């Protein structure tokens, strides 16, 4: 990477620190490790008092002895570097003490760690440092770990960075803004000073430490040769050289050095380690774990301030959310702000009172809940109370939390049986799947089920348990819908089991000769609504063609390419008929959640149909050109998942924030019932919601801010419950700290949702520009933050925490809802992808944005090892055409489909083994089936594993051979987001663009 090597020559160029350093040069007594000596003072919070220049040095020097013992402790706190250190100097409360206990200090192991991970780097560097080299037989890679200076090395860059950042952070409270940075100009040279005096060993630790940084191990080897990160020791950021390296003829751009999220989504750990009682990041992820203390600071942080909430995320075994029953005492909540009791409340007055952590009101502890406090003020029964120790709990809600008795889980199917539905085989697959799921529907024995089918007329089915065969009733008056039978259309599944099964068996047969091509969707929806509005529940719509009759009929719009590029373009992406919005609103009101399955190969106006799912908290499944032979498995799996996953019924969600912060907007599939109450008729583990936060007060007075997500729902078993997730985040006064604590995944998730919403009111181009501008602004602010103290030259700098942000930004611009123009994706595909992405949890979204690409042929030929976990055996490759070798076999996996790419020169043996006899045939007609040989079995096992890893969607396996156009381009090449395709930019150009814009008015 051009990371820093260009900066290296900068050292001499740095202003020699004449005055401030001299006291230093003399200061380090031999005993003090020069390294820490050189470094430590930087972290001293004393800076604010010293204006700059000479007078400041002595106090610093005098302080150092105090500081150095501190240093020796620090190496232990290496793993979560930034917060660990950023905390105290910044004067940030909260974090400073918690971090100490966290990681046990293993100073020496730590020192040995770096070498294995980054030998090449150190080698090169060592060249510079040979005189100081291995004075200790410390193991092969010549680390300086043995030197006194080496002692300080284990902390790695994070540590160094943060210690440095301490400088940036410390003074800021008193001198917000750049001036403080200028004040700081004197300190930076100090490390160099000390190193010139003694060990340049300052450098190796940096490099050695570099690979330790989370997320940088196991990277593609071409990524980030740490070599060049020399200057990084003093810098708080990563950088890329985007111009020619002086003195070299070759262009300095090395695309392979650009950061890539090849490890997938890495959740910043520091946060959860700092606050172990927070809920897990799978439930709540803040875009930055450091909340700005003032509005002005928040506005300088140009990234979104918000969170992504996935209230029902699936927990791995052993980490299930505990269920708490308060019994007669009722749920303990704050009287004023209605916060639920959580690990962060304080018990006082010998246990008789508790202080709400959000509004700090003193509440009484009910008699039944009383417990004595021990000497430290902890409740004696703390360990038996999960709600006081865990960030996530389920409370059993008493009757006050019910408007009506909890409803049974209800599944209602609205099935299109017109010509295309039967011809494509959809009807048969759907009927079989529903039948096979009857045993696993949640909520036995209370589950309710019902069906309506429709073509140009509506068909109702009497499923009364006393019947042996279902009775069909046909209603053909579409203008004045009535329900022919008030009761027996929605029946208890366990009672009417045999009738339901008989119905599902006969359903495909009944309509197999249907030649009706009309679709009275609107009236059917209305009828379903009338049947369901007593109970609410889940409505599954299987729609095969454009609604053509009755209310809500839709036109063929969107086949007019002239509309694209004009100001009216967006109108194609929003519901055409107000009928849909109104129906969606009504359904939400009566607790009906709608999932839309669309199968047509022609235009079906997903934009309108999807509106139903959007406002009822559902999702859209789209199978363009459904053929049961190809898409059958996918539909089977996804419908089954939809029917059998644990679902929360008639729920509402509210996010409470501490004083001074409020939620300003919500993004996702739901409807707002009041300003901060999300109505979610049916919610499950595959749905996530984004919220943006705003500061209400100009200045936050508290040191920490709390967030509490509460989801009130009816569990399938019929119990009313409240799921509560609580998290705490420190308030900081330093912009740098906010950047350090940023969570790329959450930011990208919020951005993707904002961009998709933007496409509903403006052109695609505008939506893409918005994303680009937002990233540019954020990077520019970051650059401004550092440009004063560092010579940045023509480097693009970004915080370690946000190193993948530009790439993900590019990926958002190239994602299906946003990329290209009218020709690049059909309108329906775009809209369906948009609705899907609005609901995806962070991890899933990141995988879709930057899918994984593996080369598998070598692995397949290797002798089989049984324990093959995808991550262990296969290496993710950058998504660029360069990664593809025509002799290889590759798997591309974005979580929604698996594309198997057969290189042109792939050994025919492999192809033959995998595909059987028809290996030479047109691959679009071949399906992958297990063959009787080891290679095929191995591959199928791998695919199975990939599918099991994430059951929320069923990735369909598609085969494509190199050069098979246009399929190849469509399936794979278009998705190689780092490449330049058609009019879109590649990764390199994108970075250059960003960089150019960042530098303008920088």
């Amino acid at each position, binding site marked *: 990477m051009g990371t820093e090597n260009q900066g290296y020559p900068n050292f001499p160029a740095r202003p020699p620190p004449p005055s401030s350093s001299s006291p230093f040069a003399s200061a380090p007594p031999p005993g003090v490790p020069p390294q820490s000596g050189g470094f430590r003072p930087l972290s001293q919070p004393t800076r604010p008092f010293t204006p700059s220049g000479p007078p400041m040095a002595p106090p610093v020097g005098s302080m150092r002895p105090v500081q150095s013992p501190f240093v020796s402790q620090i190496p232990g706190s290496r793993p979560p570097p930034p917060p660990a250190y950023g905390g105290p100097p910044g004067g940030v409360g909260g974090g400073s003490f918690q971090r100490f206990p966290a990681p046990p200090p293993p100073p020496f192991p730590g020192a040995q760690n770096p070498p294995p991970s980054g030998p090449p780097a150190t080698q090169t560097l060592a060249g510079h440092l040979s005189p100081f080299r291995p004075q200790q037989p410390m193991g092969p890679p010549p680390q300086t770990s043995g030197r006194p200076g080496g002692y300080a090395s284990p902390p790695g860059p994070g540590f160094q960075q943060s210690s440095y950042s301490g400088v940036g952070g410390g003074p800021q409270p008193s001198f917000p803004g750049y001036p403080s940075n200028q004040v700081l100009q004197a300190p930076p040279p100090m490390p160099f000073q000390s190193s010139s005096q003694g060990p340049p060993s300052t450098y190796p630790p940096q490099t050695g430490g570099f690979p330790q940084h989370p997320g940088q191990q196991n990277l593609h080897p071409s990524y980030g040769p740490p070599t060049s990160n020399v200057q990084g020791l003093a810098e708080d950021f990563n950088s890329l050289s985007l111009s020619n390296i002086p003195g070299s003829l070759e262009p300095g751009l090395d695309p392979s050095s650009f950061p890539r999220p090849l490890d997938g989504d890495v959740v910043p750990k520091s946060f959860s380690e700092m606050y172990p009682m927070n809920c897990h990041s799978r439930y709540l992820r803040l875009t930055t774990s450091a909340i700005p203390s003032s509005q002005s600071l928040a506005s300088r942080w140009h990234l979104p301030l918000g969170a992504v909430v996935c209230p029902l995320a699936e927990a791995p075994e052993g980490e299930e959310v505990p269920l708490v029953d308060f019994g007669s005492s009722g749920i303990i909540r704050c009287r004023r702000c209605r916060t639920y009791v959580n690990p962060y409340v304080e018990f006082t007055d010998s246990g008789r009172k508790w202080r709400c952590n959000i509004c700090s009101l003193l509440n009484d502890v009910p008699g039944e809940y009383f417990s004595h406090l021990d000497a430290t003020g902890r409740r004696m029964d703390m360990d038996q109370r999960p709600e006081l120790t865990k960030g996530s709990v389920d409370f059993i809600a008493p009757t006050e939390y019910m408007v009506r008795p909890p409803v049974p889980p209800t599944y209602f199917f609205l099935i299109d049986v017109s010509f295309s539905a039967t011809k494509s085989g959809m009807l048969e697959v759907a009927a079989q799947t529903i039948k096979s799921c009857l045993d696993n529907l949640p909520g036995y024995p209370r589950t309710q089920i019902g069906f309506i089918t429709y073509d140009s007329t509506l068909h109702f089915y009497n499923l009364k348990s006393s019947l042996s065969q279902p009775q069909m009733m046909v209603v053909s008056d579409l203008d004045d819908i009535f329900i022919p039978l008030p009761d027996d259309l929605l029946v208890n599944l366990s009672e009417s089991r045999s009738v339901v099964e008989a119905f599902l068996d006969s359903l495909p047969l009944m309509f197999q000769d249907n030649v009706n091509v009309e679709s009275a969707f609107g009236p059917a929806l209305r009828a379903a609504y009338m049947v369901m509005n007593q109970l609410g529940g889940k409505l599954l719509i299987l729609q095969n063609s454009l609604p053509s009759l009755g209310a809500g009929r839709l036109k063929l719009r969107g086949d007019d390419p002239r509309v694209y590029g004009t100001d009216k373009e967006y109108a194609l992406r929003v519901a055409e008929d*107000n009928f849909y*919005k*109104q129906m*969606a*609103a009504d359904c939400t*009101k009566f607790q009906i959640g709608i999932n839309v399955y669309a199968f047509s190969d022609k235009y079906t106006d997903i934009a309108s149909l999807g*509106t139903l799912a959007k*406002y009822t908290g559902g999702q859209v499944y789209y199978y363009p050109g459904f053929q049961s032979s190809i898409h059958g498995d996918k539909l089977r799996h996804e419908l089954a998942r939809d029917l059998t996953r644990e679902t929360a019924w008639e729920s509402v969600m509210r996010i409470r924030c501490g004083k001074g912060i409020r939620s300003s*907007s919500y993004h996702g599939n739901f*409807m*707002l*019932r*009041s*300003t901060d109450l999300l109505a979610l008729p049916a919610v499950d583990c595959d749905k996530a919601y984004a919220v943006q936060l705003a500061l209400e007060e100009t200045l936050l007075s508290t040191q920490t801010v709390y967030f509490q997500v509460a989801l009130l729902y009816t569990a399938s078993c019929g119990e009313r419950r409240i799921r509560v997730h609580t998290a705490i985040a420190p308030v900081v006064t330093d912009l740098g700290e906010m950047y350090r604590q940023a969570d790329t995944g959450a930011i990208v998730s919020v951005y993707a949702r904002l961009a998709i919403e933007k496409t509903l009111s403006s052109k695609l181009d505008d939506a893409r520009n918005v994303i680009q501008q937002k990233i540019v602004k954020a990077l520019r602010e970051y650059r401004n933050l550092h440009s004063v103290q560092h010579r940045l030259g023509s480097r693009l700098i970004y915080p370690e925490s946000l190193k993948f942000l530009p790439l993900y930004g590019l990926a958002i611009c190239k994602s299906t809802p946003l990329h290209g123009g009218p020709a690049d994706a059909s309108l329906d595909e775009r809209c369906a992808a948009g609705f899907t992405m609005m609901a995806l949890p962070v991890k899933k979204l990141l995988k879709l944005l930057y899918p994984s690409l593996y080369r598998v042929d070598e692995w397949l030929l290797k002798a089989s090892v049984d324990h093959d976990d995808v991550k262990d055996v296969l290496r993710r490759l950058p998504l660029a055409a360069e990664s593809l070798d025509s002799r290889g076999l590759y798997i591309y996996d974005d979580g929604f489909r698996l594309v198997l790419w057969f290189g042109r020169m792939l050994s025919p043996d492999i192809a033959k083994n995998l595909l059987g006899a028809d290996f030479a045939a047109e691959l679009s007609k071949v399906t992958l089936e297990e063959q009787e040989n080891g290679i095929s079995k191995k591959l199928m096992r791998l695919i199975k594993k990939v599918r099991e890893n994430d059951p929320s969607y069923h990735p369909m396996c598609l085969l494509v051979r190199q050069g098979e156009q246009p399929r190849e381009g469509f399936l794979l090449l278009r998705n190689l987001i780092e490449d330049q395709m058609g009019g879109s930019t590649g990764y390199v150009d994108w970075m250059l663009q960003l960089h150019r814009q960042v530098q303008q008015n920088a």
Partner: protein
Amino acid sequence: MGDLLDWIISFLFLVTLLIIVIYQLTCLADLEADHINPYDSSTKINRVILPEFGLQGLLCVYYVLTGHWFMAILSLPHLFYNIRLYMKKEHLADVTEMHNTNKGEQKKRLYKIAHIALCTFITSYWLIHSALGDI
């Protein structure tokens, strides 16, 4: 005398309009303060929107018919704005997005109120003027 009647009638028109728009504004404000849910709020607002538009159109026609060109021209922008909303089918409150669009909708109605108030002010001036002139 005829002039006075014209002014009285148009004054009544304007006051009714003012009341309708203020009513919509209160619905939106109630929604913001959580005193009402979006369903009720949107029904209440949508019920009076077409009457409001119709009334405003009638008023314009009335000004033209009675030859008060200045007032007619003054109310034209309002009329065009209403027609444009109607053509784009954006005149009705969208129940699903009530909370997100609330701020903007309130602002729109404030402008409307300002415009109507201005008209009312001028009209009442002429009303008094012509009433006194008749004596």
